[in-house]
């Protein structure tokens, strides 16, 4: 029997034709993503300030807390995370397969359609037309746009994948391809059964919880871990430890992770929360596996000189993945859930997952790949390092106080002799600290947007110059004579 050749991302050579073919789609995806990242940050700040001054912007229905808060979450998830993840996935698939993307106009159109959908969706939420389902607040028109935009992006990525010249399958491939078709499945299911032909009563809650878990935990893990499994070996100069262990992590994530998400105290038939708790306990396996793989790959690798560079983002992202997933698993345990359910611990976990893990991983990937794709360096390369440290402290200041405050709030709420207002007041100092964390994140996001927009400007300027030169170039003399 032939020895199986284990694919290794380190041997893969960068291909400039692949990069060039992705230029337009990636600028369309990342440009919009950077914009929504900023917008989401501003909305999150507005929402957070309202806890310290409830009268702040209270006269404006578009900016009431109950609308701004979901809008900020959705801007981060649908505005930034998903398009950035799709951009990184497109690049990774093309790069791993050594195949330039064909018909780039379609993904460019899909990216524009996606970002237009996000605009419509956010306007819908802020004007009071939210669907009322968690993480699915976008009104129907926006959901339809997002769905078809995603389908086009996924279709093009799959066509590129199918036509790949390098036939070897890397661990990143499984994760990314699974992500490509899992989103349309869960998103269409959730929208069809909740918004278009709504099912009745608590079945809505079951489907909503299933969707939320599969988008926020499973989909983000597919893309984020898939990207990390490409970048970690690349940066550390050591092969992924190991290929088969990665396959094991993928399988257990698919088998167990998809069943999490039904809260233990939910008013549903008991088998659902119980099954979900069991699945969450088993999800410790893939989470720790990812942690061990990353650790083994990094240990003994080259000491990377990119301090505060893309490498740091990816490392921090992987660490946050493990931590946020462990928080998620903890809240599925009925005893812990009794304290943490309905408290700020939940938002703390979500923020660590969305920002600490996924957004940070995407920042690292974008900082690595966008200059290669554009053919230009970032206009402010020093800001990358500043962005890393600001985001690191921002995430810490956002997540830690909310998590601790959440536990404190939960303990107080479980004690009926402590008045509700006293339990609430106990959380306010923690909420103040988290506002500072959000401010740092806003600043970090601004630095990211500066670099992305700056690079876009440089690239477009060069493009205009090139076109101008081509138009104004003197015609060939022989042709004129003829």
């Amino acid at each position, binding site marked *: 029997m032939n020895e199986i050749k284990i694919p290794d991302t380190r041997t893969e050579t960068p291909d400039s034709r692949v990069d060039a073919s992705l230029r337009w789609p990636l600028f369309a995806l990342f440009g919009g993503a950077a914009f929504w990242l900023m917008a989401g940050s501003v909305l999150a700040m507005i929402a957070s300030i*309202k*806890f310290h001054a*409830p*009268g*702040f912007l*209270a006269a404006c*229905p578009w900016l*009431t*807390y*109950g*609308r701004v808060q*979901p809008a900020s979450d959705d801007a981060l998830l649908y505005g930034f995370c998903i398009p950035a993840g799709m951009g990184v996935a497109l690049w990774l698939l093309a790069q791993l397969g050594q195949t330039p993307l064909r018909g780039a106009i379609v993904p460019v159109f899909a990216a524009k359609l996606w970002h237009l959908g996000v605009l419509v969706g956010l306007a819908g939420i802020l004007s*009071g*037309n*939210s*669907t*009322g389902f*968690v993480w699915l607040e976008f009104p129907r028109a926006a959901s339809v746009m997002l769905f078809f935009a995603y389908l086009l992006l996924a279709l093009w990525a799959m066509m590129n994948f199918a036509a790949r010249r390098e036939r*070897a*399958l890397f661990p990143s491939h*499984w994760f990314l*391809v*699974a992500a490509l078709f*899992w989103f349309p*499945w869960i998103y269409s*299911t959730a929208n069809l*059964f909740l918004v278009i032909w*709504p099912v*009745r*009563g*608590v*079945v*809505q*809650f*079951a*489907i909503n919880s*299933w969707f939320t878990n599969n988008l926020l935990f499973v989909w983000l893990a597919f893309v984020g871990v898939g990207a990390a499994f490409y970048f970690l070996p690349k940066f550390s100069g050591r092969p992924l430890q190991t290929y088969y262990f990665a396959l094991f992590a*993928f399988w257990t994530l*698919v*088998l167990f992770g*998809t*069943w999490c*998400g039904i809260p233990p105290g939910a*008013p*549903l*038939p008991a088998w*659902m929360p119980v*099954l*979900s708790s069991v699945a969450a306990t088993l999800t410790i396996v893939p989470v720790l596996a990812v942690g061990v793989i990353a650790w083994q790959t990094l240990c003994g690798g080259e000491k990377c000189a990119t301090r505060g560079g893309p490498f740091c983002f990816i490392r921090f992202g992987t660490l946050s993945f493990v931590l946020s997933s462990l928080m998620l698993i903890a809240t599925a345990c009925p005893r812990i859930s*009794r304290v943490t*359910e*309905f408290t700020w611990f939940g938002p703390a976990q979500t923020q660590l997952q969305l920002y600490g893990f996924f957004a940070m991983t995407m920042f690292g990937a974008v900082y690595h790949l966008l200059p290669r794709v554009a053919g230009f360096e970032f206009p402010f390369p020093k800001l990358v390092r500043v962005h890393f440290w600001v985001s690191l402290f921002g995430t810490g200041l956002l997540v830690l106080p909310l998590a601790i405050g959440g536990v404190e*709030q939960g303990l107080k709420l479980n004690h*009926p002799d402590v*008045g*509700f*207002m006293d339990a*609430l*007041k106990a*959380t306010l100092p923690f909420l103040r600290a988290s506002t500072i964390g959000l401010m740092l994140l806003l600043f970090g996001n601004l630095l990211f947007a500066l670099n992305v927009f700056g690079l876009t400007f440089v690239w477009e300027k060069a493009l205009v110059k090139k076109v101008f030169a081509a138009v104004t170039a003197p015609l060939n003399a022989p042709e004129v004579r003829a």
Partner: protein
Amino acid sequence: MKNGALIFLAAFIALGGSWCGFVLAPQLQLGGTKQTAILNSSEVYPVDRLGEASLGLQAYRANGCAACHTKQVRQDGVACDVILVNSGTNRLAVQAAAQAVNPALPGLIGSRQTVLHNASKAAADVAISKISSAGGKAEISIIATGPDIARGWGLRGSVAEDFLYDNPIQLGSLRAGPDLADEGARLPDINWQLVHLYAPRSLIEGSVMPPYRYLFKVRKIGGKPSPDALILPPELVLASREIVPTPEAKELAAYLLSLRVDVPLPDAPVTPPGGSYASVGGESQAGSGEEAMFARGRAVYGSLCGLCHGNDGLGKTDQVPPLAGSEWVNVRGFQRAARIALAGLNGRIQAKGKDWNLSMAAMGAALSDADLATVLTFIRQSWGNQAGAVTADDVTAVRAAIGARPQPMNGDQLKSVPE
């Protein structure tokens, strides 16, 4: 690797497994759920909301109330109380049986005496059999337990049936504000709800709820004042202006008043204290005997007042003042107590030697004069209180005296009202 297709096919099937588990299976199990029969009643539950309350769910959704409020009560378990209903002919034997069950009982036991408190179902069954073999009659009262219920956020935990007609379902996942599942039972006062929406801090000190001013209109009081205008605390009253709720605000308030978790169901049994207020039914069935009146008073108290003041009348430490032995209740005159019940209370008040800062909802709109009279009588004659009974005519007189739009008072203002 040659097994690429195999990996993807298997992953596809595995992912689909969770779809079958948490999308298909719940729909198959619960999708056809119909109304359930209420325990010990011929009525069914839930009933779809109508009119304003039904539209109010959409206001609740549009303004994102679920971002801060949950609408689900959590229950830890159940405990049983054994209550002696009738001592029968052989009082001494029943007395001995009861004391065999619970040696801590006083020497003389009367009607509706609680024989066992917070016992397990098995212990309660033993007590019932002992008392009935002695010739007495006792009944088990099922009490849901858990911090949410002890807080007065509902009589029992929320179950799937409660949400049958909620579309979209708004369970919420964060308690930055209190749970609202039982809001309509706790604060059945539309004016309180509207003023709270308009200016939360005027009613709840230190509230972090944003004021929903955009749900209200400020209007010049013309020739005809609006019947909907808010009855505002004095510090918010504007000269020659009135605050009128928009239709959306009225719908939202109607929806909040429709929220309650107090119906006993087969999979969520609970005995409303003193028998269900709803199951006692219309006042016609209540009878007019003194005992029946007292029973009705207990029922009304249990489903409304008891949520905050406690079924023992002791209130909640530092949050809700006690009614047992309170100088506002246990006095000869009923005028002040009736006024508090009818018009609510807002501001500082002294009770039983302590200072309280309260915002109690008015019950005048939720309860008829007859029900108010029974509940006032019950409060004035329970837990060691020994004031006289109040009749429906008494309450009608107080209601007429304070007018159709009474202002909730504070302690000092109440003292200016004759006893």
